[in-house]
C-alpha cells in the first residue's frame, strides 16, 4: 500500500531542499527514484539520439524520455489510470496546474481531449475510462533528432 500523505510530506520536504523526486527536466537518475516510488518494473530502450525508460505499474505504462545529456525531456503514459503527475512533473507540476485551472475556468466547459501549452510545457491528454493516454514534454529540451511524434 502506497501511503499518499507520507510521500506528500516527503515531497514537500525534499522540494524545500533539493527536488530529487522531480523527474521532468531532471536527470536520468530520477527515473529510478520514480520507479521505486511507483513500485513498478523498469525497462530501458535505446533509440536514435535518446533513450526511453518504461515503468510498468498498476495497469499503466509510464515512459520517460532521456536526452544524451541525461535530462528527462518528456514523459508519457497509457493505461487504466493516470500516474501521479505531481511526482512525474516535479517542479513543472505547478505550471501544469495553473494552466489547467485557467482552462477549466472557461465557460462553456468543453469535455474534450486536453491540449495545453505553457511557458515551458506541452501537455496532452485523451482516452477513456480504461485507457487513458497522456504526455508532457519540454519543447526547448527535446533533442533536435527527436520528433514530438516519437513521444507517445
Amino acid at each position, binding site marked *: 500500500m502506497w501511503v499518499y500523505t507520507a510521500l506528500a510530506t516527503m515531497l514537500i520536504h525534499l522540494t524545500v531542499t533539493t527536488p530529487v523526486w522531480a523527474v521532468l527536466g531532471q536527470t536520468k537518475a530520477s527515473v529510478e527514484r520514480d520507479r521505486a516510488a511507483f513500485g513498478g518494473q523498469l525497462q530501458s530502450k535505446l533509440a536514435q539520439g535518446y533513450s526511453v525508460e518504461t515503468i510498468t505499474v498498476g495497469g499503466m505504462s509510464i515512459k520517460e524520455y532521456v536526452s544524451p545529456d541525461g535530462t528527462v525531456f518528456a514523459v508519457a503514459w497509457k493505461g487504466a489510470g493516470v500516474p501521479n503527475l505531481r511526482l512525474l512533473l516535479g517542479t513543472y507540476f505547478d505550471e501544469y496546474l495553473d494552466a489547467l485551472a485557467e482552462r477549466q475556468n472557461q465557460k462553456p466547459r*468543453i469535455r474534450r481531449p486536453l491540449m495545453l501549452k505553457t511557458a515551458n510545457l506541452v501537455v496532452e491528454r485523451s482516452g*477513456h475510462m480504461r485507457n487513458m493516454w497522456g504526455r508532457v514534454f519540454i519543447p526547448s529540451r527535446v533533442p533536435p533528432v527527436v520528433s514530438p511524434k516519437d513521444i507517445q
Partner: protein
Amino acid sequence: MMYRAIVIACLWLVSACGSGGGGNGGAGSSPTNVLTVTVGGSEICTNVNSPCTQVTICQPGTSTCQTISDMLVDTGSTGVRIFGSVLSIPLQQEVESPGQPIGECQFFADGSALWGSVQLADVVLAGEPAVTVPIHVIAATFAGQTSTQNPCNNPVETDPQEAEFNGILGIGLLTHDCGTSCEINDNNNRYFSCTASTCGSIAAPLSTQVQNPVWLLPSDNNGVILTLPNVPSAGAPSLSGSVILGIGTASNNSPSPNISTFTTNQDGSLTTVYNGTTFPESIIDTGSNGYFFPDSTLPVCPIPQQDFYCPPAAINLSATLFSVNGRQAPVPFQVANAASLLRTGNAVFSNLGGPSPSSSPTFDWGLPFFLGRVVFVAIEGQSSTLGTGPLYAF
C-alpha cells in the same frame, strides 16, 4: 444553493420510486425501460451537447429515496457518480476494513478528475426494479482532502455548478469502471483506502468497484439504446430523446435486421482511420461535446473557443470505423464554424468538431454522432441478438 431547489429530496415509498417496477404499463404510462434524455433547457446541464437525465437513488434496502436530476448520460464511462452535496439521504460506505472507507479517484480525458467515497446505493433507472450497486459520491473534501491536495494529484471538481452536472450516469460498454486491472494491482492510483486524513492506493475487488447499473438489472441488462433526433445545421435550443434499457428484450428495443455491429476490444475501443491516420483507441461517447480529432488543415477557433474548429464554411468529412473482427464502415460527418454556431445561443449541434492531440490514439466520436441515429451499446460479456458485447451497433 440553486441546485438544492432543483434536486430537492423526494422521500418516496419504494413502490412509488420504481413506478411499481413490475412492468404493469397501464394506459398512458411510460414503458418501464425508457429514460428520457434532454439536451439544453436545464439550469445545471447548461453545456452545449450535454445529454442529461434523472435517476432515483435509495438508501440500500429501504424506501428512503431521492430523485437526482441533471445526470450526464455518458456512454464513455462506467458507473453512477453523484455530488455528495446534492444527496440528502444516507448511503452505505464501502470499507476496506472497519474504519477504513474506500475512496476513488476518477480521471477524465479533459484533465478533470473526481474524488470521493465509494458507497453502496439502490439505483432506480426509469421504471426498472432497484439495483444495489457501488456508486461514486463526489466530494473534494472526503477523507480530509482538498480540491488541490488529494490522491488524484490533480484538481478535482467541487460542485455541480462548476462541473455543469449533478452527477454522471455512466452506461457505456463495460460492467466495472476499472475492472481486473484494479483488482490485481494495489498501486492502481484509482481506488484508495482512507483514514481520517490519509489515503493509500489499494486493490479493489470487482464487487467493490463502481459499476454500470444496467448490467445488474434482472432483465434489460445486456445494454442500452440511445435514440436522439437530428437537429438543423444551425443547431437547436434543446432536444428530447431516450435511453432504452435492454437490447431485444422488449417490444421497444429490438434491433432492425440491417443494423451493423462493431465489436470493440476489451477496453471498449474501436479503430478509426481518418486521412490515412489510424486511431486504435477510438470511442463513441455521448459525454464528449463534439467530434474531436486532429486535422492540421482545419483552423482552430480563436480563444476562448479553442476547443473547436472554425472552418470558414461547413465542411463535409469522412472517417472509417473498424470493429475488432474486421467489419468496416465509412462514417460521413460535418464540421461547421463553431464560433458561428455558438453565437446562435443554441444548445444542440450536429456539426461541432474540435482538435485533439495529433499523437493521441483516440478519435473521439462525441454527441453529434448520436443525433439522428439509433445507437446500440452492448455491455461486455452480455449476449443479445447482436452478439456478445462489448460492441456498438447502429
